[in-house]
């Protein structure tokens, strides 16, 4: 029978691999470029229990419980997510697993959508666990399946390094059937010494993980996805994942050592490769990880990070240009793209974050922000977000700043974060504000969904990943329970009132929380958000061309040059124009215009 071939995205192929491997439990917190993995499981593989966790630490913890019970489990996250999950992860390296466990950690070279650029391979070395790195969708599926076998054979969690270019590229995959795991579900109290990490047991497991590393090194030498391709014996390239594909694209005539398992490294195979080729070049994205290790083994590296950048994403031409140097022939430059207007992402027309940040800007508030759509408020013209470190850090930042300022800080600053982010790691920080007698203000922008990563459900939305109805966290009650006494609600679309409430709360010498209401993400279909007027238009008789309305950065409003005058004789250099295809009638601009120049369009 001919096997079915389907084009899958790298992330979808990981989901498929998990299903074929007999995984029954999957957890995740969304984050680009990893988000699609769990959604794909929820949508297409009912054999797998799936849940969005409030954060990555919880995702790994719940997966560990299922694994200890015998289930094959997967947790997925982006690179910075593993930092959050590092606490359970580092110790799980000691306890090991029962049912196979794979943790997908998706790096984001070139920081397409993240707060830093880090190389997750360092986590594998740090935690002493094996790591695999696929380069295309077929490998995503194959490596996922083999990860579970390795996990069970060596009693270890296995890391799979995803990254933007693999997660978000599509290529053909041969589909296979699912094989259920043979491990029975059950818990045995006699296993306690393996799972209770008190010092006496830790010392036993400490020795175990060193032995495990030695066994894994031997395994890596025979691992079928580590392979040599001997062509030109003059030059050999060592690479993995997508870096291998770029190098193969531009130097197909060279020899290759293609690594599928990137930690631990196959020492014998590397020795053999050095015997077969004259000069070795290492092509790797981000850190000189292989290079450092291979040099430490005593080998010479002909070229590596001396030529290939250690930051941003690689590409075929970067690899070619770096290694060819002066011999590289650059394509013809017809225009300078840097002279063209850029097209950065922007808050959507009608987004409830826009008026809220406009209010904060008008008040001159220093905003300790957070990761989410609202981070876009840092861009001009709003420029109303002034710090953004990681999820949940805004509340801590504002608290720290208030302590530094003392009473003089009242009215000057606040923390702003989204609903999903609040549940991710805002709660503990808010509790800290109350406990440590802080007086900072936290604004929860409740748009009823995890917006930026593409609309994932969370504990506050009322739905699970599979759209089953679920309990909804009540942020007001929760804040109360944490000890906050001053809790206000604001409709951000009413700018004056929003400013008044924020001003009052900022001035209070006690912790306070402001929750936005009536402000679901305008892209959230089920919220069915409708405004009173369908769209607005410009009354050119009144528009003085003052550009005040442009200060909100609405994508529907643009500037039109052209001298003229209002009906009552005020001269102007141009007017604004509202694109009725983009405007959704949110009414923010009319509140800003002093000259009644913005009026409802016709339904």
């Amino acid at each position: 029978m001919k096997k079915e071939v389907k084009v899958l995205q790298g992330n979808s192929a990981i989901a498929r691999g998990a299903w074929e491997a007999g995984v029954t439990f999957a957890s995740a917190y969304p984050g680009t470029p990893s988000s699609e993995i769990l959604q794909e499981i929820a949508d297409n593989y009912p054999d797998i229990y799936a849940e969005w966790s409030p954060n990555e630490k919880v995702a790994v913890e719940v997966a560990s419980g299922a694994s200890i019970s015998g289930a094959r489990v997967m947790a997925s996250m982006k690179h910075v997510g593993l930092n959050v999950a590092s606490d359970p992860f580092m110790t799980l390296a000691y306890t090991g697993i029962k049912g196979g466990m794979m943790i997908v950690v998706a790096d984001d070279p070139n920081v397409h959508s993240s707060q830093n650029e880090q190389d997750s391979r360092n986590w594998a070395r740090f935690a002493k666990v094996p790591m695999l790195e696929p380069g295309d969708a077929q490998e995503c599926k194959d490596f996922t399946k083999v990860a579970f076998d390795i996990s069970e054979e060596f009693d270890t969690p296995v890391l799979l390094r995803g990254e933007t270019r693999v997660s978000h590229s599509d290529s053909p995959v041969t589909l296979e059937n699912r094989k259920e795991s043979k491990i029975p579900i059950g818990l045995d109290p006699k296993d306690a010494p393996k799972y209770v990490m008190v010092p006496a047991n830790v010392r036993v497991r400490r020795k175990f993980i060193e032995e495990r590393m030695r066994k894994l090194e031997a395994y890596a030498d025979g691992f079928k996805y580590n392979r040599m391709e001997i062509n030109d014996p003059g030059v050999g390239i060592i690479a993995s994942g997508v870096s291998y594909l770029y190098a193969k694209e531009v130097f197909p005539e060279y020899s290759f050592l293609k690594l599928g398992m990137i930690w631990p490294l196959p020492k014998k195979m590397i020795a053999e490769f050095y015997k077969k080729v004259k000069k070795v070049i290492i092509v790797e994205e981000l850190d000189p990880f292989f290079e450092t290790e291979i040099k430490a083994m005593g080998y010479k590296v002909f070229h590596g990070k001396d030529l290939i950048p250690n930051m941003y994403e690689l590409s075929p031409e970067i690899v070619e240009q770096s290694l060819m140097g002066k011999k590289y022939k650059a394509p013809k430059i017809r225009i300078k793209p840097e002279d063209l207007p850029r097209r950065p992402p922007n808050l959507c027309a009608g987004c409830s974050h826009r008026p809220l940040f406009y209010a904060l800007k008008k008040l001159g508030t220093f905003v300790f922000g957070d990761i989410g759509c609202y981070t876009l408020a840092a861009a001009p013209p709003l420029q109303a977000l002034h710090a953004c470190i990681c999820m949940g850090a805004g509340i801590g930042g504002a608290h720290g700043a208030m302590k530094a300022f003392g009473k003089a800080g009242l009215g000057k600053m606040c923390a702003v974060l989204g609903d999903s982010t609040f549940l991710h790691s805002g709660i503990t920080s808010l509790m800290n504000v109350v406990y440590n007698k802080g007086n900072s203000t936290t604004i929860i922008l409740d748009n009823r969904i995890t917006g930026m990563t593409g609309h994932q459900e969370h504990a506050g939305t009322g739905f699970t990943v599979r759209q089953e109805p679920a309990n909804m966290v009540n942020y007001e009650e929760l804040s109360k329970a944490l000890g906050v006494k001053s809790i206000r609600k604001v409709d951000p679309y009413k700018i004056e009132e929003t400013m008044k409430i924020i001003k009052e709360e900022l001035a209070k010498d006690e912790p306070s929380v402001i929750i936005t209401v009536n402000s679901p993400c305008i892209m959230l279909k089920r919220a069915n958000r409708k405004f009173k007027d369908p769209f607005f238009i410009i009354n050119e008789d009144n528009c003085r061309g003052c550009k005040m309305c442009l200060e909100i950065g609405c994508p529907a409003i643009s500037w039109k040059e052209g001298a003229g005058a209002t009906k009552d004789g005020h001269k102007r250099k141009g007017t604004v124009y509202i694109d009725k295809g983009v405007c959704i009638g949110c009414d923010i601009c009319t509140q800003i215009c002093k000259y009644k120049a913005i009026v409802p369009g016709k339904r």
Partner: protein
Amino acid sequence: MMKNNDKVTNIFLSGVGGQGTILASNILTEVFLNAGYDVKKSEVHGMAQRGGDVTTHFRFGKKVYSPLIKYGDVDFLLSFELLEALRYINWVKEDGKIIINKQEVFPPAVNLGVAKYPDGVEEVFKKYFKENVQVINGQEIAGKLGNVQAANVVLIGAFSNFFPEIKEAAWVKAIKGLLKEKLHELNIKAFSEGRKAL
């Protein structure tokens, strides 16, 4: 540096978030996979749901390694917006072919009046690529069919003319497979109008 004759064809799609760039590239993927090629596709975007620029690299051939096209190696540029076409003009080979949708979507800096939307995009392309440039008013064609949203499929229809070896039925099959049933009729018409437009 490629030495073998198993040529890989590089198609670069560009547009603005929400224009259907990714759906268009999904259609290409299905069509060329079914035609027996190895295919690789990669979306390059940050937070495109929020109106940012979106590009897709699509490659097909006997064997495709890199998911990204090499800078300067684009055989076909298919752009859904004028500025987003111009932004990638240097990527196109000397003899590359270009189809552009005649639509302007202003980025924030232009809306704010601090940057100018480029003039004469068509002329710049014609200067370098002569008769290899085709400009199509996808919105107008799709609008006549009742939904401007189908402009992306109009462009795909026009683009399909470059591959006479692939029958219209193969494109229609891909469109049907990727879109909800209620959108089939409109999009098949949009495809067919686009095919006639070139």
